[in-house]
């Protein structure tokens, strides 16, 4: 029974992800072995051995549930795999640990204050594990027998014969059960579960042994095996819900539909306090476990000084998730102030963080990444073209060369070629400018662009 319920745990929250081929869709994990050593190429990760190893160590601590309320900063130049590492961590954590990913600029919205947006993101990253337990009767219907009184009116009585692979038994039915059986259209050969407490009947499907009873059958008829074991079972299901979900449900003005429309508005702090105390109570009674999750804030330099001071405070609360931030800035102005600080983050917050830095990729690594991307995007490319593309990647940027893959593939298909070769790459390279060539172009022809005359005149007068 316990084994069967274990499988059910895996089933929950398995929402099919409709994912287009995104920039990081090839990441499957951190690519570490059991000893937390980073493999050179694994799970879509290439290079960045040190950073991945560091991330792996942090992952272990997260899994133990130990460092709630700490922060990690991933710092590095653009295109060095910061987001990739965060994505890898999310994948490696599995479905049971909540992972929320936001971009720094996401919190600036007219409908919600900055702190509200941050609080919601925080609470989305804290899971609460709860268990529900139900006594059910589960079996295949062998026979339903309903006796109607001869007069036509009065109470009906009936019998229901259920079986599992191990046993078979007869239940006497009362009026209510007969009604719900007729409502569910349950008949011999159906596999049903009956909730003992509520008497609710649920049809799971038809028994495989009855698969050939009729020739014409609805398309939605589901065939299931006859249940094993005892008839009267105890079903235990463990759910992990986030604090934010509970908030939304209990925030009365909204109702639970708000959860799906995405527009939750602001949640009153009283509601949050109530939920906090309820969850704390459950934890005391052994009814709930807190699962600290991970909040990932990309482009963290986009946050302003108010948000930083909020984060400072929020990290100290006893229900804080692990905060992972990523930035590509060096020493820069803190948003909302005149002061400059490393990574655009105030020193006092920086002091609470551990910093992982990512290094620019080497040529070999870029080639490997491009190869992985080709596979991800279903593009056939010969070796020469890949070498040329790698050179482009070295001289311009990794992102630019990744973007050329799809474009080159289209050019290749247009000339009805089977694999992308050097000419295709050259063609798209001449069609699409990279950032440095575009800058070069602008510098040369600046005078001919719009609004240029104005600034020119102003500059002359001044």
């Amino acid at each position, binding site marked *: 029974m*316990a084994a069967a319920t274990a499988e059910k745990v895996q089933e929950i929250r398995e929402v099919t992800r409709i994912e287009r081929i995104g920039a990081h869709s090839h990441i499957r994990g951190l690519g570490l072995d059991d000893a937390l050593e980073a493999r050179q190429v694994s799970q879509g990760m290439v290079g960045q051995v040190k950073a991945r190893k560091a991330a792996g160590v942090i992952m272990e601590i997260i899994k133990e549930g130990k460092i709630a309320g700490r922060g990690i900063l991933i710092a590095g130049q653009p295109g060095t795999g910061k987001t990739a590492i965060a994505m890898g961590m999310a994948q490696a954590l599995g479905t049971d640990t909540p992972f929320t990913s936001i971009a720094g600029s996401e919190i600036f919205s007219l409908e919600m204050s900055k702190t509200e947006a941050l609080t919601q993101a925080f609470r989305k990253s804290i899971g609460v594990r709860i*268990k*529900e337990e139900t006594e059910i009767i589960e079996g295949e219907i062998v026979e339903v027998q309903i006796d109607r009184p001869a007069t036509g009116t009065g109470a009906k009585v009936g019998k229901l014969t259920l079986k599992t692979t191990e046993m078979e038994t007869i239940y006497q039915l009362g009026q209510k059960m007969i009604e719900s059986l007729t409502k569910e259209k349950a008949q011999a050969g159906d596999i049903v579960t009956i909730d003992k407490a509520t008497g609710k009947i649920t049809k799971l499907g038809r028994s495989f042994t009855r698969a050939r009873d009729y020739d014409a059958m609805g398309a939605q008829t589901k065939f299931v095996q006859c249940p094993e074991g*005892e008839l009267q079972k105890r079903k235990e299901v*463990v759910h992990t*819900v986030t604090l934010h979900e509970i908030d939304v449900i209990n925030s009365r003005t909204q109702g639970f539909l708000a959860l799906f429309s995405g527009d939750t508005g602001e949640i009153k702090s009283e509601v949050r306090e109530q939920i906090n105390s309820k969850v704390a109570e459950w934890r005391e009674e*052994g009814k709930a476990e807190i699962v600290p999750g991970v909040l990932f804030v990309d482009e963290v330099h986009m946050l302003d000084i108010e948000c930083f001071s909020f984060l400072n405070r929020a990290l100290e609360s006893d229900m804080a998730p692990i905060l992972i931030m990523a930035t590509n800035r060096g020493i820069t102005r803190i948003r909302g102030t005149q002061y400059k600080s490393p990574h655009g983050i105030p020193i006092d917050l920086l002091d609470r963080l551990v910093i992982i830095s990512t290094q620019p990729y080497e040529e070999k690594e870029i080639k490997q990444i491009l190869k992985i991307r080709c596979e991800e995007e279903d593009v056939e490319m010969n070796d020469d073209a890949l070498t040329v593309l790698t050179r482009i990647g070295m001289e311009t940027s990794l992102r630019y060369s990744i973007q050329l893959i799809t474009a080159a593939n289209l050019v290749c298909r247009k000339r009805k070629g089977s694999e992308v070769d050097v000419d295709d790459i050259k063609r798209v390279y001449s069609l699409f400018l990279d950032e440095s060539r575009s800058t070069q172009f602008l510098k040369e022809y600046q005078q001919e662009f719009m609004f240029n005359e104005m600034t020119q005149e102003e500059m002359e007068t001044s």
Partner: protein
Amino acid sequence: MDAEEGLSSIEASDLLKYLTEIEMVAEDVLSSRREIIDLDRQRNKTREAVRALQKDKHRDKTWLCAGNMFLKVEKSKAISTLTKDYDELDAEINKVRSGLRPKVNKLRDLEKKEDLKGFDLDPLTPDEKRSVESLLL
């Protein structure tokens, strides 16, 4: 050479010990499952018998089989005996079930798998469940 052989024989005996232990624990789990099934079958039969006796309005006395002896007893007495049996079976099943979880966890521990998460929690009461029901899809 001798030392190597000695080492491998130690390893082999360790392995054997390990496997025996796993098998023993696994067997324990299986026998508990078997026991629950047998008890549930008995429980259902008892329930059927009680129902049948309750429906039967013609006779005052009935045959009750105890061990391999048939006794003719008062129907009310028979019903109360059976109900008591039923309650005992119920309690017994619950006891075996509660014992099953640590056994499964021990097995998973031996197999170097992680413990089942959250199964050692106490369940929510129906009232509490209702308040978060829409989340529990």
